[in-house]
């Protein structure tokens, strides 16, 4: 159905998200930091990036900044921030750098993750969602 790049440094969670999203029929690749993500998007061309924020080597915010600088950032690629840092300045910053939505890992069961990914692919962020309904 869609091509999804999972960017998550925790190996167990990275593996879990791949299982959950493959079960939904998506083509999924997992990487462990922002630097690996920058390399992967060149040949994988994802429809959606599931992006953790706090990672070693290169975190989520730095990835978004560097991706913009490459000039290859495609507006059609949805970015879903998946973090445990709710109500933090980092989440606000991620939105400014083009993230579409943010969900909290510790609140989100697998069936919710699959639903939010599906919804984000279809509708983008809440703003786009409400515009579409007009």
């Amino acid at each position, binding site marked *: 159905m869609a091509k999804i790049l999972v960017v998550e440094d925790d190996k*167990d*969670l990275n593996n879990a998200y791949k299982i959950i999203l493959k079960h939904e029929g998506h083509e999924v690749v997992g990487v462990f930091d922002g630097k690996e993500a920058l390399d992967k998007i060149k040949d994988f061309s994802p429809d959606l990036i599931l992006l953790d924020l706090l990672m070693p080597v290169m975190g989520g915010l730095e990835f978004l900044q560097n991706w913009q600088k490459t000039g290859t950032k495609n507006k059609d690629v949805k970015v879903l921030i998946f973090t445990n840092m709710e*109500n*933090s300045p980092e989440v606000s910053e991620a939105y400014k750098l083009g993230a579409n939505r943010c969900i909290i*890992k510790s609140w989100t069961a697998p*069936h919710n993750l699959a639903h939010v990914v599906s919804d984000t692919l279809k509708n983008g962020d809440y703003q786009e969602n409400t515009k579409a309904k007009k």
Partner: protein
Amino acid sequence: MTASRDGTIPKRRAADQAQAEAIFTSVGDGFISTDEFGHITRINPVALKLLGYKRQELLNAWFPEKIIAVYADNMPVSLIDRPITKALLTGKPISEKTFLRRKNGEIIPVAVTASPILMNGKPIGATQIFRDITLEQEVDRMKSEFISLASHQLRTPLSAIKTYSHMLSDGLMGPLHKDQLKALETIISASNRMNELISTLLNITRIETGTIAVTFKTVNVCELVSELMPELTLMAHNKSITLKIKQPPKIERSRLRIISDSLIIKEVVTNLASNAIKYTPDNGKVEIIIRPGTKDVRVSVKDSGWGIPLHSQDQVFSKFFRAHNIVKKETTGTGLGLYLVKGLLDAVGGTIWFNSKEGKGTNFTFTLPRKPSKNLIQI
């Protein structure tokens, strides 16, 4: 008062004035006083240093023209919104955080207390005391970073426990028998409680250090609440509680669109709804009702639970409050949930109130403004 023949009274008056001047000069924060028309009558050395002016540049000048308060984006605060104006209009001290613009154009964050000077109940002027809070904000920022890191480290393994438990119970790794599923429910429930506790502690610390980051975006309240329903329904199902959501007809749902913070709204609803379920006996009812107002959206969470005793109702939003009638029945609460809910709603400009009758149930209602007021998007 007439002068005495030996000049004692004028000498005493001069001594009193000198003492008053010494007290005024030694105040450790910036201190400015004005007459009833807003002209600066006194200014101490700390204020001059903080603002970068010389005394003669400010004495007798009109306060709002020279002492410029701005928002974080350096746009001026309007006269009516200035603490000193509010103090004069209300007759009460007003304490706020704001930014002031120095003579050289630099802006500094300050904590301000403006008070009216009253004589026989009539305002004859005002005072403004202020201090530079740059260092305090830096310390708060460091505390906030530490808390973010600590909570991330605690929550990552918990996320793995929850995710894999759900994957097992959802059958993604093959079928399980009844006892295995029951065991997984226990693991999921315990990890949820741990997550809630970490989340609550993290957010309370952020609220109390003023470092809660609010992201204002256009959101639909109905959609946000709907996203929470799967987990809340599972919680309710475990106690055979009927959980319903009441919302306007589809044609009116666009009126539930507001500019606010989606994560804060979800946290508030989760807290109130999970409290409602927790404090309602088995086979009871919980309803979430969403309706649009003219300037806001209102959400009510109503239950048929144990209710809050009348004598405890004024403490409901206090830290660590737990009503005595539920402490014995339900021992897992921390008493922080409603304190957190109030703090989160303050951050987005919302309000909250409730009605409750012991033995009958409780109804919490909160409002979310359609758009945030300007002072919420600064410090």
